[in-house]
């Protein structure tokens, strides 16, 4: 981190937001550039290579989703964290489905944005390692092919009898690095697709929110992972599940999810 400084691109049309993000990044010792529009951001990306992009959704002319498409078209694989003042669940879900690795609603506290930046930088590092790793090396465990995921962080497995199991991906855990404790919701509470459903407290003092892949009513939570956090780290896709839920509108929500079978290709 010290030898070659992390470079972050900020794309936001609000000067005050840009200024505050610049201040935070400067405090953390990151190198930053900013663009006040998506077009400007794409131009900068053509010239320079960045480790992470922080992009607003509501932008003049080209919006954040179109920016994601622009990146895809230019084959720029830099991870993107989306932010927006129009902080609806729909925007969160859509951002993740369109390929953003994370979503932070405005207004955010310093710690909230820092935890997201941290995960984003780690994500970039993991992807870098993956690029140079031998095929036999296991960097992280992919989610099983019958599972569906929201973005890269949470997974859902539709089991029979109208139930679904919800959990966290290994990739998310790797971006968190390691966590001290975990906070879960209680049985009978409702979770909503795109809203936080679990909170991972990291050693650095960050709280990492996990956005739920589906909506539904919690009928059981995995008490084992609360008493022994390492179960999640060892086996996030099976023994390390978080909730069993009765999904409320699975047909509708499925279209926002990505099938894990595509990850194996």
């Amino acid at each position, binding site marked *: 981190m010290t030898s070659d400084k992390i470079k972050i691109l900020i794309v936001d049309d609000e000067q005050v937001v840009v200024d505050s993000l610049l201040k935070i990044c400067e405090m953390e010792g990151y190198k930053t550039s900013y663009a006040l529009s998506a077009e400007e951001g794409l131009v900068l990306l053509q010239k320079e290579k960045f480790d992470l992009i922080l992009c607003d959704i509501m932008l003049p002319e080209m919006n954040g989703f179109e920016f994601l498409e622009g990146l895809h078209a230019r084959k720029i694989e830099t991870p993107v964290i989306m932010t*927006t003042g129009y902080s609806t669940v729909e925007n969160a879900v859509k951002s993740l489905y369109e390929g953003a690795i994370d979503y932070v609603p405005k207004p955010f506290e310093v710690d909230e944005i820092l935890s997201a930046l941290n995960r984003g930088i780690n994500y970039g590092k993991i992807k870098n390692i993956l690029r140079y790793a031998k095929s036999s090396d296991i960097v992280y465990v992919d989610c099983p092919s019958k599972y569906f995921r929201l973005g890269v962080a949470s997974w859902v497995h539709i089991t029979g009898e109208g139930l679904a199991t919800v959990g966290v991906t290994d990739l998310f855990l790797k971006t968190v690095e390691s966590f001290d404790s975990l906070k879960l919701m209680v049985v009978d509470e409702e979770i909503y697709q795109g809203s936080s459903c679990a909170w991972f407290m990291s050693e650095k003092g960050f709280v990492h929110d996990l956005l739920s892949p589906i909506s539904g009513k919690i009928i059981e939570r995995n008490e084992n992972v609360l008493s022994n956090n390492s179960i999640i780290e060892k086996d996030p896709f099976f023994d390390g599940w978080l909730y069993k839920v009765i999904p409320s509108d699975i047909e509708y929500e499925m279209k926002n999810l990505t099938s894990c079978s595509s990850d194996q290709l």
Partner: protein
Amino acid sequence: MKHFVSKIGFKLILVVGITSLIIISVYAFFTIKSQHSVLLNEVERHGNQLSEALKKSMHYEMLANNRESIHNMINTIGEEPSIREVRIFNKLGEIIYSADDSDIGRIINLQEERCFACHAEDEPLHRLPINERTRIFKKETDNQRVLGIINPIYNEQTCYEADCHAHTSSQTVLGVLDITLSLNDVDQQIKKSEFTILLFSIITVVGISFIIVFFIRKWVVKPVSGLVTATKNVAAGNLQYTIDITQNDELGQLATSFNNMTHKLAEARMQLFQSDKMASLGRLAAGVAHEINNPLTGVLTYSSFLLKRTKDKPEIQDDLKVIVRETKRSREIVKGLLDFARQSVPKKNKADINEIIDRAYTVIENQLNMNKVKFEKNYSTDLPQIVVDSNQMQQVFINLIVNASDAVGPNGGFVKASTRPIDLSPYGVIQIKKAECSKRHSLIDEHNKIDGLPTIKFLVRQDEKEVIFRLNSIYGKKEHESGSIINTQKAFTIECPTCAISLKNENEKCPECNSSIYTIDTPGQGQLKGCINKNCYWQTWPEIEASGRREFIEITIEDNGSGIPKENLSKIFDPFFSTKGQKGTGLGLAVIWGIIDNHDGTIKVESEVNVGTKFIIRLPLEPMRKQ
């Protein structure tokens, strides 16, 4: 003029008028004609009789050749004013007898009108049938019509055997009796009757026209112009316009369905307006949220950044914490605004009401403890599951429990939540949500409420006195509110306050107390009848009764708090009605009302100042039978 001619009323009047004119003219024409011929026939018959009688009476005198006597006879008859001429010609055309002495001896031309019947041919006719003996012609002298009767005097045995030997047996016709009658009287009579018939025809045509004009105006022109005015009004956007229905025919039905149509249109527009309002409110909220969140990001990041940087300066830290806390609060408010703007469709699932209340309680447990409010539960253990939106229901209970705890005040008290399954006849449970008179005027009074529900009002008139009656809108709950007392022993009317159409059912009496009955339309749900007597509770609503008994879950949230003053009781479900001043938005109970209503349920409130308040919610287990 062209405008007038093109009107439907004018066209109808014109067509019917012309038709009756033609019919009556034809009738008059034939009547006059037949009367004319009847009268002339009568005169002819009379003339022939006269001529025959004269000839017979002269027969003997002629045999006796009593000339003087014949002469006298003819003169006497000729004095009759209607008889113009009486003459007898001999075979040669010489006038031998005449009432007018100057004619005697004159020979008349055989080509004359009177001779024509027999002498048209060269060889004269010897026998002339009786109907050809008469001729009507005009006298050259005074231009009057006259009837001439020619009566040939035939030769008989007595004639040629008479002593005078004036005639031989070879002669057939001895002479001719010619009588001329004046037709003056008859002509005058005919003229008079022609005039009478014409006059009568004209009066009839004019009379019929007036009657047609009257009824076409009443039955066609007025309702049609009413409809035209109504369509113009509706086209201009006035959907409140209703047509007064005065008749029961096709036009009346058209007007009724027109009223129904505008009524439905108005409802649809209202709904559209409402959803439009919500949509624009949503867009506004979204815009506001976006605009506010950006500056809030600046405040929150800078303040939390400073908080990190000034860990060694506790005096600044405290102030900064306030900024961070308050900014976070603003963030929650904006988030609430966005959640409201999304207006998600209610997601109904089978749920346990007891569980939902418990969940609501856990959310506000701390607040209740702080207010020293004890939460008591009195749940039914065999409560069936019910299909509800559990989030919305939770919101209802949170709101009601928070309200109750606010009412309890600082000295503490209790809030009690009870649930029980109930099995009720629709009587006393179902709310009458729509009530109309037969002219589609709503009888629902949203402003004056009983038990927090809109009332049904009608106008009662007795002895020049008008009293507004308000009826509890729960079917079977017959509490009245009225300005004055009605004497049911005396005559009175029950009317729609808008159009004064009678709501009184004249054909029926209350089966319980024999008082008068009112009938109101409940669109889509048939008719509702009830007794006007304040002490009688009889009401019947067949369509709803037919749907049978229904199972409900009854939830009661009661407190021993300050209570709600009676004057506020009717307003508590109104949007923006609040007694909490700055603390409340006044939307809480209005939203609750909407949620319960969406679930086909009812909510009502009972309260007494300084004793407590009780909210009673009833949710049907099965949704209402769809009409």
